């Protein structure tokens, strides 16, 4: 038996994290953002060591449950869990009982019956992970639900910016592309505005969100801009979003070439931004559609770094969530 008093409580600083699930970051306090950033920094140190593994989550079982295809998010979570010594089982909806008609909640119960303690979930429908969390005994981590939220992406973007800039507060951050249907944009808007940045969304009218500014006070600092040069003027960070081809089919974008002509992030356009501007992209990149190859691989680009940072941030999230489990 392990005694709880094996180390006097007064000598060990405990954290103020009580969340059992990570569904969205819209309710995060600045202290919580801060804690994730600090914890991720330690995890990044661990990743730079010859032995990239710590026993923090030894004996825990984690499942990734993906109803949508994914390379980086799923493998990033899997590696994060493994670096913390957890056991991971990966389920892709396309090759599981989902095909036989098993419902989301039944799948969840089945995983829990096998002892899974954390379920990392991606689903094409907004709110799917919130639904799962209502029924779950395990912890649910949202790895993307429809056009709603992608909290770990926003956290890793925040972490990446903080590696280059002392503060998020006061930065001008431009999100370029289809912010209307992007869960990455939505989560980032919450995170960036909560930390005091001014966010500008830029793209064709049909791909900008409707009624953002009026709906919520948090969004009051969000500007909408259809002119890319005006949007980029004086920007500290530019994040290009992936142009999702299915939007074209939906008729929101009459012609992809028109988008490319007007909104592709090119070196000439980037000159309008600050000289130390950071170029980001959540991936996967459609080269020479939303961003030119030169810019994506250029000196301002931190796109690769975002991927590495994602691993550290997801390790931090998994570690923190395991503590929140008790409440």
């Amino acid at each position: 038996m392990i005694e709880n008093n094996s180390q006097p409580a007064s000598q060990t600083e405990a954290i103020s994290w009580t969340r059992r699930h990570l569904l969205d970051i819209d309710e995060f306090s600045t202290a919580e953002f801060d804690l994730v950033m600090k914890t991720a920094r330690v995890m990044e140190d661990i990743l730079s060591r010859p032995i990239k593994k710590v026993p923090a989550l030894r004996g825990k079982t984690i499942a990734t449950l993906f109803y949508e295809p994914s390379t980086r998010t799923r493998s990033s979570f899997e590696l994060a869990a493994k670096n913390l010594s957890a056991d991971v089982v990966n389920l892709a909806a396309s090759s599981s009982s989902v095909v036989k008609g098993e419902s989301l909640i039944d799948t969840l119960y089945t995983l829990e019956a096998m002892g899974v303690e954390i379920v990392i979930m991606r689903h094409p429908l907004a709110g799917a992970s919130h639904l799962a969390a209502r029924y779950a005994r395990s912890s649910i981590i949202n790895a993307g639900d429809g056009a709603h939220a992608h909290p770990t992406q926003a956290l890793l973007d925040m972490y990446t910016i903080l590696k280059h800039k002392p503060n998020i507060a006061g930065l001008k951050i431009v999100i370029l592309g289809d912010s209307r249907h992007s869960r990455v944009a939505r989560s980032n808007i919450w995170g960036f505005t909560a930390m005091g940045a001014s966010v500008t969304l830029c793209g064709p009218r049909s791909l900008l969100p409707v009624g953002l500014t009026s709906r919520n006070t948090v969004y009051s600092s969000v500007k909408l801009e259809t002119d890319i040069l005006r949007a980029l003027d004086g920007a500290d960070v530019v994040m290009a979003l992936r142009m999702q081809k299915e939007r074209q089919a939906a008729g929101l974008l009459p012609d992809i070439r028109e988008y490319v002509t007007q909104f592709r992030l090119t070196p000439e356009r980037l000159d309008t931004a600050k000289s130390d501007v950071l170029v980001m992209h959540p991936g996967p990149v459609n080269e020479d559609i939303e961003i030119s190859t030169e810019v994506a691989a250029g000196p301002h680009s931190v796109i690769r770094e975002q991927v590495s940072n994602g691993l550290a941030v997801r390790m931090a999230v998994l570690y923190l969530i395991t503590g929140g489990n008790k409440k």
Partner: protein
Amino acid sequence: MAHEIIETNRNLSEIIMMGMRTRGVPLAERLAANIYAYEAAQISVGVLDFSLYRDDLGSRDLQPVVKSTSMPSGIDGKVVVLVDDVLFTGRSARAAMDALIDLGRPSAVKLAVLVDRGHRELPIRADYVGKNIPSSKEEEVQVKLTETDGLDEVSIYRKGETGKNR
């Protein structure tokens, strides 16, 4: 304690002091400063955060805050002296040793503690002890240091009471 470390280690240049967070860190720095004062030997000091190696993770109400580990240089082939304030159950020392081994392969690992209060739950002993303080399990032993707490003080008190000097 600094004298003991000097006496038992022929080659002081091979020693690295690793302070175990939190209060082991200033203690390690003080020991290194004393050794420098006596022998004019520079001892490098590192910081070890072993919270991810604790055996009670997940059984506590809240996870401990993880902080960074920093090493002055590689520990391979070096004599690492782990420094902590209180040696009690030995579980922290076990966690610290595991954390250390993941960083490299020291030629030897030693343990220096300011206070040994007994009640070991693991087969661990300290190589250098500032003071043995026999205590009851109902008591808490708390070390305060100027660097972290504003004053130097060792106090023993019954659980639930606030600190009283003895």
